[in-house]
Structure formats: structure tokens, C-alpha cells
């Protein structure tokens, strides 16, 4: 008898993902345990409009953990706000681990000193993701608004490396980070740390569209992508798996609402962290009821005549239903800026002859919802 089969965890995880997709099991959950933060980042969508009481207590977290455990969740991301500012973070984190979840953490790392680094070495997370905001004290402070934030984060990175704790670095690509992103990437590479970036900026949770001013336009985004990856190798590989000439009228092509979900500090459930449209509350409703509603949402199709329904690049789109929902109010809306970014990429990869989307020459169908006036005013018009 082999009671512990000699299969790799990767094979087992692949088997679980396959079954979760087939049976629509919520394998992964992102949980916001606190909405406030010790940084004042100019692009943030959550903390600037958060109140002190916007946090999840240990008791509330345990309600969520129990429900997710019963539903089959295996991976849990604890995020914020800044999780290390939560007075019960240690208890919440350990409870998540003792529930048998593989636990991931998002943090700005400002508060990770010797004690937290030792704690994480003793109780390592499955994944730790640190937001990086610049490569000098000046640029860091300009973005975070907090003195010494650069020095503190750099020290945290060294403390984690010294203890062999695995983590990755990430930074949003936007007007105020674009110049230093290549240096951040080089820094991560020199330290042997994975680095990633994301090009979508969304409005604040309560509607302020100010952060959209920081969004890179299609040309600016492509110029940056080329600086980070001159031959566009990683995007080329990503696109090769997803562009085959076919189209789909399914709005949600990711795992949101199918194998994953997002839970905010008040128990509100949405498809993912980018979508702030809550469709149910785990403190008040049974999990199955919410999961069924979420399933209905992510099964939606584009209306006839929608440009995305017949786009062969929809699976590599720079936008997604959640970012589109944030800008237009509906997952089935249409944001031409994302379309231009995507076609620009398709052009660079040789998939599209001009890089100009059809809606530029033919117009956007009148029945398709476009960004709200407030969002449109802030989005980049040109490069």
C-alpha cells in the first residue's frame, strides 16, 4: 500500500484545477481583511475611501474560512488595504493556515521588520506578493506619501531574502511609474525575484475617477512593454495560446466566479478584487446561494452586435469584464482604450495588419455602453 502516493504537488494541483473548472468549485478566494492602509498611494482604489471600521475581525474571518472550507476552497489570498496594519493579522493568518488553506499574502512590506520576518520564516505563506513603487526614496515617497517608505521596504526585502522566504514583486504600470519600471525589473532580476506589472488602473471604490489620470495610453503602454521585454517574448507566448482566429460571446473568460471569488471586509462577494460590484454577503447568506448568483453573472453573453463578441483578440484583451465594469458600470460595456491597447499589441505580434480596431473606423454601436462621463474625462485620449 502506498498511503502517500508519490505524485508531485504540481500534478495534484493540476488535477484539482481541472476538476474545479469542470464542476465549478471555488478553489481560490481573495479576502480583504482590512481596507485601510499605512500608505497614501495616488492610484489606490480602496484605501483612500476606507474608514477605520472597514476591517474584518478574527471572528468574522473564521465565519468566512469555515464557509470556504466547506465549499472546497484550497487557496486563500489575504489582502487589503495593508494586512500587516490589522491588529489581528497574525491570528487571522494562522487560522487560515489551520483551516488547511494554502495562504497567500499581499503587502506593501513597510511593516515587515525582524519580528514579522521571523514569524513568516516559521509559518511561511504559500505566496507573498510585495508592491514596489520606485527605485529611489524620492519616487517612493512621491507615490506613497510616506517618508522612509523606500528604505523600509528595501530592508524588508533583505530580511525576507536572508530567511529564504519566497516572494514576488509587482508594480502597476502608470504614468508616474513608467520611467522607473525597467529599473525595478532589473532590481528584481538581480535579486532573483519574480517581477510583474499590470497596465489597468481603476477608479476608487466610491466612484472618484482621479486614479484614471495615471492610466497609460495605448502607445505609452506599448513603449513601456518594449522597454521591459524588447522582443515581447512573454506576451508572444501568452498570445500564442489564446489567439487562434476563433471568437466567443462569453463575457468572462477567466476563472472569476467559476473557480475563484473575492470577499471584501464586510463579507461582500464579487467576482474578483477588481470588480467592486457586490452580489451577496457571506455574513448573511449561505455560500451556495451567493455562488449560484455569481455563476449567473459570469455566464453572461455579449449582446448581438457588441464589438468584443466578434473580436479574435478578446482572450488577450488589455481590459477585462471587471475593469470594463468599473469604467462603464457594466461587464458588457466597451472601453475603446483597452481595444486600442490590445490591437496595438496584436499589430506588434503580427496578428493584425494595422493595430487600429474596427470601432475606430466604423464607430461603436449605439446600444453598447461606454465609459461614464466622469471616467471618460480622465482616461488618456492620446498616447
Amino acid at each position, binding site marked *: 500500500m502506498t498511503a*502517500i502516493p508519490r505524485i508531485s504537488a504540481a500534478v495534484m494541483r493540476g488535477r484539482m484545477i481541472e476538476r*474545479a473548472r469542470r464542476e465549478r468549485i471555488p478553489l481560490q478566494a481573495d479576502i480583504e481583511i482590512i481596507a485601510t492602509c499605512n500608505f497614501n498611494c495616488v492610484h489606490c482604489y480602496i484605501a483612500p475611501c476606507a474608514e477605520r471600521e472597514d476591517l474584518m475581525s478574527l471572528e468574522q474571518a473564521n465565519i468566512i474560512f469555515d464557509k470556504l472550507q466547506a465549499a472546497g476552497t484550497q487557496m486563500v489570498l489575504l489582502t487589503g488595504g495593508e494586512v500587516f496594519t490589522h491588529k489581528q493579522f497574525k491570528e487571522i493568518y494562522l487560522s487560515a493556515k489551520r483551516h488547511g488553506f494554502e495562504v497567500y499574502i499581499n503587502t506593501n512590506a513597510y511593516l515587515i521588520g525582524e519580528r514579522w520576518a521571523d514569524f513568516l520564516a516559521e*509559518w511561511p505563506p504559500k505566496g507573498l506578493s510585495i508592491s514596489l513603487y520606485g527605485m529611489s526614496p524620492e519616487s517612493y515617497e512621491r507615490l506613497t506619501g510616506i517618508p522612509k517608505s523606500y528604505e523600509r521596504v528595501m530592508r524588508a526585502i533583505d530580511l525576507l531574502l536572508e530567511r529564504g522566504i519566497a516572494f514576488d514583486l509587482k508594480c502597476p504600470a502608470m504614468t508616474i511609474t513608467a520611467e522607473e519600471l525597467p529599473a525595478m525589473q532589473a532590481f528584481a532580476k538581480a535579486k532573483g525575484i519574480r517581477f510583474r506589472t499590470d497596465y489597468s488602473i481603476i477608479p476608487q471604490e466610491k466612484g472618484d475617477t482621479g486614479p484614471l489620470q495615471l492610466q497609460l495610453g495605448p502607445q505609452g503602454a506599448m513603449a513601456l512593454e518594449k522597454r521591459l521585454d524588447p522582443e515581447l517574448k512573454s506576451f508572444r507566448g501568452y498570445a500564442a495560446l489564446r489567439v487562434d482566429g476563433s471568437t466567443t460571446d462569453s463575457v468572462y473568460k477567466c476563472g472569476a466566479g467559476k473557480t475563484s471569488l473575492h470577499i471584501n471586509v464586510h463579507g461582500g462577494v464579487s467576482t474578483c478584487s477588481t470588480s467592486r460590484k457586490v452580489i451577496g454577503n457571506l455574513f448573511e447568506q449561505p455560500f451556495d446561494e451567493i455562488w449560484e448568483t455569481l455563476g449567473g453573472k459570469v455566464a453572461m453573453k455579449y449582446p448581438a452586435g457588441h464589438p468584443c463578441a466578434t473580436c479574435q483578440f478578446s482572450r488577450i484583451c488589455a481590459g477585462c469584464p471587471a475593469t470594463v465594469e468599473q469604467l462603464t458600470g457594466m461587464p458588457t460595456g466597451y472601453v475603446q482604450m483597452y481595444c486600442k491597447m490590445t490591437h496595438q499589441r496584436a499589430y506588434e505580434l503580427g496578428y493584425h495588419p494595422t493595430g487600429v480596431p474596427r470601432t475606430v473606423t466604423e464607430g461603436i454601436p449605439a446600444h453598447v455602453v461606454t465609459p461614464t462621463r466622469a471616467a471618460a474625462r480622465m482616461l488618456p485620449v492620446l498616447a
Partner: protein
Amino acid sequence: MISGSVDSVEYRRRDNYVYRLTVGEHLLVALHARSDEPLYALTPTGAQLWERLSGWASVDQLAESLATEYEISIEEARQDVRDFLDQLGSLNAVESREPAV
């Protein structure tokens, strides 16, 4: 290595792993291991033994429950239990003690 010859020794699982049955997999999740993959799969039989190891139990006691459940000989069950305890031992997931006299 867990000794296969001293069947009166009692075993109990340590609290450095959590067992879960999820998405059809019997998982043993490490709380402390700083490994890229702190996750192990158990067979249903292994999961049953793991549950039994919440309290102290000897190889014979574990083997008896296995032999009854799966209708196998007690010798075969003893060997299966010893193999399983060896595997758990290599993960530092089980502790042992001499039985009280």
C-alpha cells in the same frame, strides 16, 4: 525511520500538518515546511489512518482497524501501516512513544 519490528510502540500525528478532503483530494498541508510544494496527497486509506492517529495508537491497533475495514489479513495490514508510518516519519508528521507499562 520508524522501526517495523516494535509493534507495541504507539504513534500519534503531530500538529504541523492539516488534513483536508477537498476537490476529491485527500490533502496533507504542511504548516511550517518552507517548501515550494508543502502539499501531499493521501490515499483514502492513508486519510483513514491519519484520522485514527489523532490519538495514540499502536501498529497492531491501526492494523486491526485496517484489516476489518478492507478485509485483508492482519499481517498485510501491519505491513501497510508500517509503510504509512515510515512515510509520515519522513515528513516529520508523526511522533512515537513507548507504551505505558
